[in-house]
């Protein structure tokens, strides 16, 4: 007779966890769609289908039961994160390449669910931005109003990709300004002129970030994530950006700007909190979040890429095992001795 205690189990499962993560992404997706149009929804469909097909194939090859693993939802979270981090008008083959790479190399070659040392979506992003830098930095201009059909045509390559379609994201604008090295130049005026950020009353990227923040707080409320990683991420990012901003407000953007642009909120609440590739001890999570925030800022401001969240998280993924090892919490009864 093989039936170990406990006989009562809480009604939780991996797929429930993953579904809730997807639900938490919805506010951000809604804000994103209202900003750039239905293209993002098209991308979500493309990545989801590509991810599911690749996952099924890999499970088959690895001899794992499809019914159990295909429904766990982990691959859908990966697919959605890829869709949300890639440019919404990126050609279909680019997002598919990213997705397939993420599922095959970053996930299954390391042993599948629960075994991947790096966040698969971030691996996809890093690989594509290194391999296709031009396509990966073509973001749609915010004022652009294209219908579903037009956007689909662009994504599927049936319509020409013209330069007028794309514009600068807030981070691109900041980077360009920094690169010019013009000390008389004021970053806040530039951003205000771009009409893409900071204007909470209207349309702008800050709403997307706010959507992710909302979803993230809900995840925290549902106890699917703890406060450690997002708080440490936000704190370290705002501390360093705040310090440099106070030092020279015309050269360095404000903490609020850094918080609400690019992948900061998505990264803080949805990617850096990935338990598989992140830290698990409370102190380790604080270090992980703080390190990711700091690295993201350094790459954004001093590095070669407009946004550094993906690389920052991958670098911290690399450190996670050793951070965990060094931050083991003292067990019950051993606190004063530790």
């Amino acid at each position: 007779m093989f039936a170990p205690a406990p006989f009562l189990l809480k009604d939780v499962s991996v797929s429930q966890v993953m579904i809730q993560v997807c639900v938490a992404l919805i506010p951000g997706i809604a804000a994103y769609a209202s900003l750039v149009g239905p293209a993002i929804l098209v991308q979500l469909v493309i990545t989801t289908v590509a991810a599911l097909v690749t996952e099924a194939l890999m499970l088959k090859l690895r001899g794992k039961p499809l019914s159990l693993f295909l429904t766990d939802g982990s691959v859908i979270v990966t697919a959605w994160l890829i869709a949300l981090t890639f440019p919404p008008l990126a050609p279909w083959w680019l997002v598919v390449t990213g997705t397939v790479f993420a599922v095959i190399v970053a996930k299954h070659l390391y042993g599948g669910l629960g075994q991947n040392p790096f966040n698969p979506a971030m691996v996809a992003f890093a690989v594509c931005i290194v391999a296709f830098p031009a396509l990966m930095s073509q973001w749609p201009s915010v004022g652009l109003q294209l219908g579903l059909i037009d956007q689909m045509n662009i994504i599927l390559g049936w319509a020409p990709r013209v330069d007028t379609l794309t514009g600068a994201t807030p981070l691109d604008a900041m980077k360009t300004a920094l690169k010019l090295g013009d000390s008389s130049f004021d970053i806040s005026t530039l951003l205000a002129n771009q009409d893409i950020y900071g204007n909470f009353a209207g349309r702008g990227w800050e709403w997307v970030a706010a959507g992710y923040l909302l979803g993230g707080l809900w995840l925290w409320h549902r106890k699917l994530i703890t406060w450690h990683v997002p708080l440490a991420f936000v704190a370290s990012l705002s501390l360093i950006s705040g310090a440099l901003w106070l030092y020279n407000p015309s050269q360095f953007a404000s903490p609020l700007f850094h918080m609400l642009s690019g992948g900061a909120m998505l990264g803080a609440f949805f990617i850096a909190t990935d338990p598989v590739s992140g830290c698990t001890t409370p102190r380790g999570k604080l270090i992980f979040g703080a390190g990711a925030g700091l690295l993201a800022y350094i790459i954004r401001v001093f590095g070669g890429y407009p946004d550094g969240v993906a690389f920052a998280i991958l670098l911290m993924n690399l450190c996670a095992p050793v951070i965990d090892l060094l931050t083991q919490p003292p067990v019950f009864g051993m606190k004063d001795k530790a």
Partner: protein
Amino acid sequence: MLMDLFKFKGGVKPPSNKLQSNHLPIAQAPMPSRLVMPLHQSIGGTPRPIVAAGDHVLKGQMIGEADGWISAAVHAPTSGTVVEVAMHVRPHPSGLDSLCVVIEPDGKDEWIARTPIDHNAAAPADVFHHLQQCGIVGLGGAGFPAHGKLTPTKGVPMDELIINGAECEPFITCDDLLMRERADEVVRGIAVFRDLLQPKKVLIGIEDNKPEAIAAMRAAVDALNEPFSVVAVPTLYPAGGAKQLIRVLTGKEVPGSMRSTADMGVQVFNVGTAYSAWRAIAHGEPLISRILTVTGNVHAPRNYEVLIGTPMGELLALAQPHPDTDGILMGGPMMGFLIPNPQVPVVKTTNCLIAHDDRLFPPKAPEMPCIRCGACARACPHELQPFEMYWFSRAKNFGKTQEYNIFDCIECGCCSYVCPSRIPLVQYFRFAKSEIWAREREKNASDQAKARFEFKQLREEREKADKAEKLAKAAAAQAAKKAAEAAAAAAESGADAAVATAAPEMDAKRAAIEAAMARAKAQREAVQPKNTEHLAPDQQKAADEIEARRVAAHLIEDRVSSEKATAAPTAQLDPKS
């Protein structure tokens, strides 16, 4: 009655399922057809059987006597005849047999003479002995002999005596009902423990989902005018774990490695233990019955006072199990186990029987890989990292599991309860622990074998050396004797030829031998190497000595081989003993 409570980290809130069984008073279970008393019912030694098949026993008569300090006697739960003393299955997850005394009741339920003890007048050692003789053990689950916990650790003041009425496991209500109905005797039992331990405070912890029990206990404490505090503790599994209750009530954290909580100045007893200790002291009644919840997939769940040794199947029948019942769970659903068959008897630590079916306890969904979500670590009341221990247990890397403090795990099941991947974590930890213990046993055995092997080798060498020495001595003595004889003979023959001719035949023979030896010597000298011809006297002496040793060695060799054939060495005792 307000006091500051502390919190322990982790814990879970499974559905309590206590309401089914706590609305009816305790009922007396009918006399079973036969009683099976396992001799080993507590932590520690196995009591020795002191009855044999065919003996007639009275109710409360000792049938197994304690074999050491941490051991408690077992008694006949009713009067009747001993059918056999044999191996029967006892409630244990292994489903293996152990030695049991089987009694067929005669229906008279005739008591043996009972001797109460005045614990105020008697010496503590006598009270301990009385409790041990009455077989009083912890009824909360572990079954530690109660008398073994009633001595404070030397040099550590006993601050708090904690009485555990938390009863945190779902379904179980036996302590609840005991406190409601027999609070007076429980409090009197606590007073005995208090008198023996002399703590500064006595705290009675009861989970706040048992308001009736709390009220009854408060009333009893007031009625007896005792300074005990009855504290309602928040309902959170496993608040009834000894170390968790200590934490909640006193803020002290007893490390997992600490063997006795008394080392921290705290001692914990279950309310049931206090009750049965009072029965033993005031009425001389040994522990032969206990209160037990029968619940789960049954028509009429309730609590029964049950004789120890009653087959569980007969008890379950009282509660009318539904037809789809497919097993009996002993203990709660978090830490209990399925018993192998309904003939398994109730033992002192059986607090609950749950009829198992798939509706109450749905079959486990298939196990998924760990996603390191950390839910287990957040739920662990001992603040361990279960998922790390799981990786290493799974990989059988037991050294690493110990680095992650696997032996601090109390197997409460919180981690398995919250795991979204439905990994049987506790099972992995139990596996790892028992493998580590087995390895420890093997290591001890191999160390001992090595020591004994080395000692045997040493002994054989020593015996050889001793023998050689003895023989060398004997040979030397013989050689000296011979040399002396020869010298005497030579002197005789040279000085007095007349004596030689007058000597008997024997002497003639000896002379002939000597002549032959002289010839042989002359011959040998003739073929001697040249460099020995003109030796200095000291050189010659050295050479002779070598020669003598050679002869002695030959003798020794011969003697050893002849002795070996007849020698019969006896077994040697262990070098340590």
